């Protein structure tokens, strides 16, 4: 049984109960359960500076489950650094809404293109969709 740390997206309007449900299901689908719930005050949503230390201090963890990969996209650039730091301390990373897992450094290298593509495409979309389509 794997042990996961749960990290909600505090910038999202989606009700927290729904976020919890999806995160729990993601833990279950990855042979585990949530053993620690990150409190909102423990991280600043845009860059999440406290999460890495929090993960280092929580014993016997196998991974961390975020509600969405958008939690890595709120800053000026895609937060590859945090992903790298997490996999380098031996934890897996999971995104509940997207149903995507990064198991280790090798896996991160493989999925990196998909992540930067997501970030890039989403930011470009925000530049024009709202202006034109919703006249």
């Amino acid at each position: 049984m794997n042990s996961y740390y749960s990290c909600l997206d505090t910038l999202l309007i989606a009700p927290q109960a729904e976020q919890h449900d999806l995160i729990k299901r993601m833990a279950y689908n990855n042979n585990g359960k949530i053993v620690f719930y990150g409190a909102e005050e423990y991280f600043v949503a845009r860059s999440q500076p406290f999460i890495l230390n929090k993960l280092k201090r929580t014993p016997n963890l196998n991974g961390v489950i975020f509600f969405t990969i958008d939690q890595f996209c709120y800053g000026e650039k895609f937060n590859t650094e945090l992903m790298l730091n997490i996999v380098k301390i031996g934890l897996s990373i999971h995104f509940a809404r997207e149903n995507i897992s990064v198991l280790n450094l090798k896996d991160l290298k493989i999925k990196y293109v998909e992540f930067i593509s997501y970030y890039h495409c989403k930011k470009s979309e925000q530049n024009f969709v709202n202006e034109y389509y919703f006249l």
Partner: protein
Amino acid sequence: MIDFKKGYIIKKCDNIEPLKEIQNYLCKLLHKHFDFYHDDPFTSLNQLHKFAPNLNATQLNEKRVGLIEDFNNEIDCSEMIFSAFETIITQFLGPDILAQKKSNVVIQMPNDPNPSEIHRDAPSHSPYEIVLWVPMVDCFKTKAMHVLDHQKSNVLYDFLAKNDDWANFEKEATAQSEYVPVNFGEALIFSTTVLHGSHINKENETRVSLNLRYKNIFSPSGLKNQLQYFKVLKTSDLLKIGSELQFKKIDYNLQKNKKEID
């Protein structure tokens, strides 16, 4: 260069084999879900309404949902459709391509009162995406889709923006749209910005078609979550080299900063 001024084209496949494979697989599932057997795939599909009579809309929809789930669980449709239409898809999008994870299967029996009303897929879908509408049988007249070209679609949306009059917009769109006959072995490829839909199928045959979307890996996304909706289908060596270097640089900076802190 592809002439795509109208926002849609009909294209013959490079390779019919993957389409035949999908067609056969679909028939197998139809036989299972609708409980009948016929050895000719075209008859199984075209005459589905005769093999499965008296189904109400709810029952038909339940069967359709079960069928789509089985269909997507067992074959990689986006890869197969890509291999059937590789040349044209690559001409549109280049070598770095995302494909819709799950294909939609649409079954339109004769006189089904619920066709798909006229609409366009953008902005929930990116205007940089292409839609491949791939019939599993020959489609003509009311059995086919109807489409409005890019220019006419734009004029109508300008009208809608100015007048906020959906009823007249829909009436005009339907009046100006054209049926687009497409045979098995061909695809209707259209931009997500063109209006399209179907009318009640007045022919004596059932239409069974697939639709799925492809986009370039770095073109702007629509409002749908790209990671949920698309998967990476193809990447070029150039993209691999570029992203590898970008990743290495971030890793290098991290290690450098860590050393400075230590």
